[in-house]
């Protein structure tokens, strides 16, 4: 049994911090709770239910070992007894955890804490021994009770979709552009989405397009000074979620409480997607293979598509592009049809279902807990309006004065920190004076997520500046767009992940390629490391090199 410090609340010192409580755990994606983590095999040996009822084929669902409905995981509770002291907590089947191990996060279940941390999780300190955080003798029993967890990611498998693109180092060396040879765009003759972008955007005409690119309709409206772009390096991202909280604090994103998270209504503009993949060939027993997954993570937020599907469906022009390539939101124009969110292929738009900024949420209170003042959001005008409380005058100071606080009924999403961009531009204009050099120098503007990233996995900058970091990053052969075949031409692109496995640890005979890559090959019957067997692919290869749409 391992007692560990928590990624969100640490040893408990941050237990009253709503941002951290609502930040999904890096791996489990559980919010507002700590869990008793164990492997599927361990859970089975303890006689605990390990499978969800018929929602997903079970060989594909190592991560789905709970009865989940829209992020509401009703988990069985176990009682853990060590030396006469015991705690009760919800079971969490954690793929990849060593069998026979139970892991509990400390820092939850604090009895004396502010209103945010009240009633959140269970107190694993009861089992704490001064000598060691590793306990070797204990008892786990089933308790006939369930506990609802609020989880932000319900489905943990990529289903063979190349959302995250990975290769082993050897494969990458042989096929450096493998990431650009995946998904449906690899089949479009003459499709050249990754041409070096010297004029600041994906300017290459795509022969199969029936619609004109929005930028070609009114080329004079596009700025010739700045065109913003971003690159996320999946190689360096560690999934710590610091960006999520940085974004939340920068952009006045409200916390919504456990109940609303469980209903799929968290407001985070950024999320860290976590995908498992496994290789059944490593072990013929699929269930055991589920115990040995590979994991990949991907920060996901508004991709700032040049041809944005959200914009063309908004009936009131509330979401539009600015001249510098930022897909912006005019909050006071939005009437909340939510069509933009439906039509977003990346599902990154967030709707204010309630007046989250005006009415207090239930914080960590579960629906089954009867704490004071729950259900405030559902009381509407009869609920407590925080704006009338004197205390709120202080709480208001947490807001960033440069960013609008949104009311209920409007859509919101990542703006690439447009307020910082504007500040940077103004500062440069002041500095430039009469010289006319209004181009912001590279690195002068940092988005909140970029600033918080400890791994420098996020690069933001001007795509018109040939020497900027972002242009260099986008020139990498690893650069790819998620769902590039939709031709939305995202300004946010990703650098594929290259794994360099240690042959002593990983059996490279059985795992020649990352498991997610293997899944992709298995689902699609094709490999980015080989020439396609289709007729058009010979020309495709040359088209990629020549940058011309030869068929």
């Amino acid at each position, binding site marked *: 049994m391992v007692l560990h410090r928590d990624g969100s609340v640490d040893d408990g010192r941050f237990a009253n911090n709503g941002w951290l409580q609502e930040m999904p755990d890096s791996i489990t994606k559980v919010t507002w709770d700590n869990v008793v983590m164990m492997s599927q095999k361990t859970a089975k040996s303890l006689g605990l239910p390990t499978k969800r009822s018929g929602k997903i084929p079970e060989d594909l669902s190592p991560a789905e070992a709970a009865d*989940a*409905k*829209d*992020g509401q995981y009703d988990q069985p509770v176990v009682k853990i007894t060590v030396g006469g002291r015991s705690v009760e907590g919800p079971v969490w089947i954690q793929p990849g955890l060593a069998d026979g191990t139970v892991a509990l996060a400390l820092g939850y279940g604090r009895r004396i804490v502010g209103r945010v941390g009240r009633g959140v999780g269970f107190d694993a300190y009861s089992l704490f021994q001064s000598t060691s955080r590793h306990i070797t003798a204990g008892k786990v029993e089933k308790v006939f009770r369930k506990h609802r967890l609020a989880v932000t*990611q*319900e*489905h*943990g*498998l*990529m*289903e*063979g*979709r190349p*959302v995250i693109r990975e290769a082993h180092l050897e494969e990458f060396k042989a096929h450096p552009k493998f990431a650009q040879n995946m998904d*449906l765009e690899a089949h479009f003759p003459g499709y050249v989405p990754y041409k070096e972008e010297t004029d600041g955007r994906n300017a290459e005409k795509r022969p199969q397009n029936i619609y004109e690119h929005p930028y070609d309709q009114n080329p004079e409206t596009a700025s010739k000074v700045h065109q913003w772009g971003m690159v996320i390096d999946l190689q360096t991202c560690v999934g710590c979620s610091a960006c999520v909280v940085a974004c939340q604090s920068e952009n006045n994103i409200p916390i919504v409480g456990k109940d*609303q998270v469980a209903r*799929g*209504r*968290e407001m985070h503009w950024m999320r860290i*997607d*976590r*995908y498992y993949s496994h290789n059944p060939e490593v072990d013929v027993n699929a269930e055991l293979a589920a115990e040995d997954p590979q994991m990949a993570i991907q920060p*996901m937020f508004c991709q700032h598509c040049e041809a944005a599907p959200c914009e*063309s*469906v*908004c*009936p*009131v*022009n509330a979401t539009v592009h600015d001249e510098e390539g930022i897909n912006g939101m005019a909050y006071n*124009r*939005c*009437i*909340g*049809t*939510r*069509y933009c*969110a*439906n*039509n977003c*292929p*990346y*599902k990154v*738009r967030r*709707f*204010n*279902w*309630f007046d989250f900024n005006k009415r207090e949420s239930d914080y960590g209170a579960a629906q089954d807990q009867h704490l004071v003042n729950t259900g405030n*959001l*559902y*009381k*509407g*005008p009869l609920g407590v309006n925080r704006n009338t409380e004197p205390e709120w005058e202080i709480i208001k100071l947490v807001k960033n004065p440069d960013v609008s606080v949104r*009311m*209920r009924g*409007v*859509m919101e999403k990542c703006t690439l920190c447009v307020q910082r961009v504007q500040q940077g531009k103004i500062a440069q204009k002041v500095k430039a004076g009469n010289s006319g050099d209004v181009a912001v120098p590279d690195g002068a503007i940092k988005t909140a997520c970029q600033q918080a990233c400890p791994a420098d996995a996020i690069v933001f900058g001007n795509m018109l500046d040939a020497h900027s970091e972002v242009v260099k990053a986008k020139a990498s052969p690893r650069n790819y767009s998620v*769902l590039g075949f*939709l031709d939305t031409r995202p300004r946010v692109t990703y650098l594929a992940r290259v794994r360099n496995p240690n042959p002593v640890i990983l059996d490279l005979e059985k795992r020649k390629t990352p498991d997610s890559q293997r899944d992709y090959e298995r*689902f*699609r019957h094709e490999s980015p490391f080989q020439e396609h067997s289709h007729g058009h692919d010979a020309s495709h290869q040359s088209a990629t090199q020549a940058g011309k749409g030869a068929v």
Partner: protein
Amino acid sequence: MASPGKSAAVKAPEPPAELVRESLVLNNRSLGWITNAIAGVCEKPMPMWWWPAFIVSVGGMLTMFSLIAYLVSTGVGVWGLNHPAAWAWDITNFVFWIGIGHAGTLISAVLFLLRQKWRTSVNRAAEAMTIFAVACAGIFPVFHTGRVWFALLPGYLFPAPNANEIWPQFRSPLLWDVFAVSTYGTVSLLFWYVGLIPDLATLRDRSKGVMRRFFYGLFSLGWTGSNRHWSNYEKAYLLLAGLSTPLVLSVHSIVSFDFAVSVIPGWHTTIFPPYFVAGAIFSGFGMVLTLLIPLRSLFKLEDIVTLRHVDLMCKVLLATGSIVGYAYGMEFFIAWYGGSPYELYAFKNRAFGPYWWSYWAMISCNVISPHFFWFKKLRTSVVFVWIVSIFVNIGMWFERFVIIVTSLHRDYLPSSWGYFTPSWVDIMTFVGSFGLFMTLFLLFIRFLPVIAISEVKGVTPQADPHHPLGGAKGHH
């Protein structure tokens, strides 16, 4: 007026028996009987069952309005919506109700232009149903918005000059919806009202109370039944029929664009416009049968709304139901043939994913149930037809639910997959919309002729001067 005795004296050549069409009004009912039978419904006090039905319906309507007040004052979160399913029951109900409206327009406009005389017995009730269904339909897209007060303000959805110089976004299908549905509602209302004028005059002339006489008099616009009035009336009616006919196709095509124009697998489908139109007519005829079958027996109108009418409407159900079934199959074929794994997954997920039950409910109600109507015996068994018509209504609601929710809840990125569960507010608002619909329909029965009196009389043999029983004969 002709009497059979007099006309017997005229030696008119009898048409061959096989060319004699079955009379649309049974038992050789006279024109006077028709007027009495139909006008009598709204002139006599309502039967006992009407009052409990009305009270329950008003209760439902008030429930819906209270829940809408709750929604507007508190936030869309009182519904079960979430990310990724930002639309669910709201738009399902919208498309469901707007689809029901289509039978009215089809019967009143398209069948009129095609000279399908049998329409006269059912068109009034079907048109009333259309208007009430459009009223129910309109509520959902209006109140599903996060900020209704701006949605209704000119300058947002409705184009109006404003200080910001921002116009609505004319590329958005939701804006097309605004125009399509409001045009549809307006034209349907006009069409219904114009058709009512001669009958309102009949009621005016028969009415005894002061109030009734005043209101029927007001709305019959001074109708005297002169030749000039009839001539103008028929021109107007024909013109409105011409105007309404494209609406039968356009409205639901545009509603289908709400989905077809998007990029979401399961929505982005070119088959949608014809498929939606067929489905709308299918659901509309289902609802017409659901309403008319009890109506004809409760008010003893079986001689006017005959088994032949039921039979013909069942044939429409069979035809449109087959188109819908074909569309379901074709969607799957294209999902496979198109070669997009995302598309294929969306359809597999419909049939075998977490919402499998809604898909198979849809298939059994919409694909299987209409095929009973290959048999005339079943087409003319009113109880059986009524039960099937209920299944059609249920199936068509599920069709929209399947399209909207199963496509949204699992789209491109598996990380954002989710599940939608309705809240009690979702459920009661939908139930309440039936209350609104039934309230309006019961008031319609109470105050207006449920069948077009003048039009039914026009298709009786007595009205045809060349018929052996023809009215003109007696006077010559």
